[in-house]
């Protein structure tokens, strides 16, 4: 029995050093989050409030969206609505064409990845430049992200250096202007400087800046974008056209509620007190234009899913991945969905269960994710519930089904069960060849257990007579 995840994970673990380095790197981020949590006495209160605010917003979303649109329009922002990825991609392409845009600078947006915007725009001849350093590296190397917040941590500096030297036309000129201390051509400080200069040129040449939105504030029609690199701000301060892509579930009711979410986001996602930049966009720049595209793409349906609507609370912070012992040891590429880890398992199933059921095996139900989630999404219970759906979807593993049926057969017949217990020690006498063959998956990592001669049940039966006597004597 295997899934695409279990196979990919097994392959990844063939180089355990790589896997353990990945595990240590992300556990380190989890520990930084822990330190942040311990430093704030009100930590659990923040989580509780964030959970309640998101539940409230999601269950009043129609009126909050109407309020958001009204306020945004009053401030001169154009608001568009997209039912699905196709409509979203068309709206964006239309806007770019209308404005004669040749080059777009983009800051990080999971939504645009969800809708495959980049390839849609590139097919139309538009130059799309990712400006988050990790995303830019992946774009230049044609690699997929491995994590939603730190997408390129698995890429080696030597490969990045080689890629930059190959793909950045004025690499040599830029390198000459470097005045720092790094001497190795693959030093991260030097490479970051090269990327800085390369990207600043892109900002200067771009006709449009596209951002996502970490939050949209219904009360005032403003969007909040949080970055460490300042790339979203550079993208929107130089080109005159600003397009925001926002999932409809990103709304929060009021400016004051931002106090809860801003304090949780970076602490949970990267273990910092704050991102360097927390920018509030409330209207177009003087002489510029600002558009917000509100995207549904399945979210309004998820709201009606009693078992899984709470995924709408997700802030895309990445804390659940960092704490997941399975994600840490299998890494992003083992998952079939572009978002890995606990939230990715759930969102992938909601997106396309037939495509992404493979990830449902990637969980030992340890519940650590539930405890780090800033908005208390019941991630592990949702994964457990997806497991119950697999059979009906036609994706349950035959072996698991057979084993479960065998167990049910046994456990529903106490007489048969106790009979089997008496026979169980026979397993001890089976030759190793049989026990360790491919037939016995337990033997992959474990030495086979020895069945004791007497089960507890048998011991009880033999000894209770004696105990009854003792009791009578009391």
């Amino acid at each position, binding site marked *: 029995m295997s899934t695409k995840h279990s196979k990919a994970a097994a392959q990844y673990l063939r180089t355990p050093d790589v*896997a353990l380095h990945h595990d240590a790197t992300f556990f380190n981020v989890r520990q930084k989050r822990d330190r942040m949590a311990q430093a704030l006495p009100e930590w659990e209160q923040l989580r509780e409030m964030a959970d309640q605010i998101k539940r409230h917003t999601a269950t009043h979303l129609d009126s909050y969206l109407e309020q958001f649109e009204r306020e945004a329009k009053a401030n001169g922002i154009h608001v568009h609505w997209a039912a699905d990825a196709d409509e979203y991609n068309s709206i964006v392409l239309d806007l770019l064409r209308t404005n004669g845009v040749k080059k777009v600078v983009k800051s990080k947006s999971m939504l645009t990845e969800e809708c495959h915007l980049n390839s849609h725009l590139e097919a139309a001849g538009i130059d799309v430049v990712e400006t988050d350093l990790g995303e830019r590296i992946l774009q230049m190397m044609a690699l997929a992200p491995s994590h939603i917040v730190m997408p390129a941590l698995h890429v080696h500096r030597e490969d990045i250096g080689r890629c930059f030297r190959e793909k950045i036309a004025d690499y040599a000129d830029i390198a000459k202007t470097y005045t720092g201390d790094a001497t190795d051509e693959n030093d991260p400080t030097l490479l970051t400087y090269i990327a800085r200069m390369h990207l600043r040129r892109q900002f200067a040449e771009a006709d449009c800046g596209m951002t996502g939105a970490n939050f949209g504030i219904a009360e005032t029609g403003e969007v909040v974008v949080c970055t460490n690199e300042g790339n979203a701000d550079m993208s929107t301060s130089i080109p005159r056209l600003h397009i925001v892509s926002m999932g409809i579930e990103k709304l929060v009711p009021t400016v004051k509620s931002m106090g809860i979410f801003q304090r949780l986001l970076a602490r949970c996602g990267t273990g910092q007190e704050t991102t360097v930049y927390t920018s509030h966009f409330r209207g177009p720049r003087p002489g510029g234009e600002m558009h917000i595209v509100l995207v549904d793409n399945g979210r309004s349906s998820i709201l009606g899913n009693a078992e899984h609507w709470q995924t709408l609370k997700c802030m895309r912070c990445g804390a659940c991945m960092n704490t997941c012992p399975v994600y840490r040891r299998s890494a992003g590429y083992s998952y079939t969905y572009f978002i890995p880890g606990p939230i990715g398992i759930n969102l992938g199933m909601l997106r396309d269960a037939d495509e992404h059921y493979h990830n449902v095996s990637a969980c030992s139900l340890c519940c650590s994710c539930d405890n780090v989630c800033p908005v208390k999404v019941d991630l592990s219970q949702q994964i457990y519930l997806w497991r119950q759906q697999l059979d009906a979807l036609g994706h349950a593993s035959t072996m698991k089904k057979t084993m479960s049926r065998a*167990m049910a057969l046994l456990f529903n017949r*106490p007489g048969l069960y106790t009979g089997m217990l008496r026979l169980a020690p026979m397993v001890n006498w089976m030759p190793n060849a049989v026990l360790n063959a491919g037939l016995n998956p337990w033997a992959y990592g474990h030495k086979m257990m020895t069945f004791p001669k007497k089960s507890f049940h048998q011991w009880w039966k033999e000894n209770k007579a004696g105990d009854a006597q003792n009791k009578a004597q009391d």
Partner: protein
Amino acid sequence: MPCYVDALYPEVGIATLRLLRSLGLDVDYPERQTCCGQPMGNAGFEKMAVPLAKQFDELFAPYDYVVAPSVSCTAYVRHQHPRLTGSEGCQGTAGRVTDLVEFLHDVVKVTSLPAKFPHKVSIHNSCHGVRELGLSAPSERNVPRYNKIIDLLRLVEGCEPVEPERPDECCGFGGMFAVEEQAVSRQMGIDKLKRHIATGAEYVTGPDSSCLMHLRGIAEKEAMPIQFVHLAQILTAGIAE
């Protein structure tokens, strides 16, 4: 009595029984019990666990408390059985189930034990124990630090309980997970064992035999130098039978 304890680790059951009796409690073992249904549930076939949940609810209804030397079974009964049995005809047994640690620490509130176990032991904080039963403060949360397992072990003469690094990271058993995601499960087990061994302890102990079974299986195959003992066995160690 968890099905795998019944079949593989009866000594844990016997120790549990002796311990409870030594505290003057009236202990019974309904013989028609088999399994709580967790293995099927976690594999995705909880419908197969429904008759077991109903059986469990009826069979254990006459008792004031139901005690199990297993945190994962206890957690499954407490959190999933109410949904599986439904409310019609339900005896509410799920609300009276505890694991051994909760029972000793919170119900009996035991303050002394005659047990002796002069060894350093590394605590295996099973996930379901920590995060579903509250046996210790989860390392992810900002709550006052506590550990009921350590509290109990401190009552045992000579016993030195310690915790490994990443004190409540999952060992990788997860029921069907261990066979479906073999490679990840094994790596999680190896990593956990290394951390237990690094404490210098002679034994790994915990409230759940399924975790211990998984770790022991890996340790034996990889020839890793550490032994395993269930908490119930330590709490009755050295007591005359």
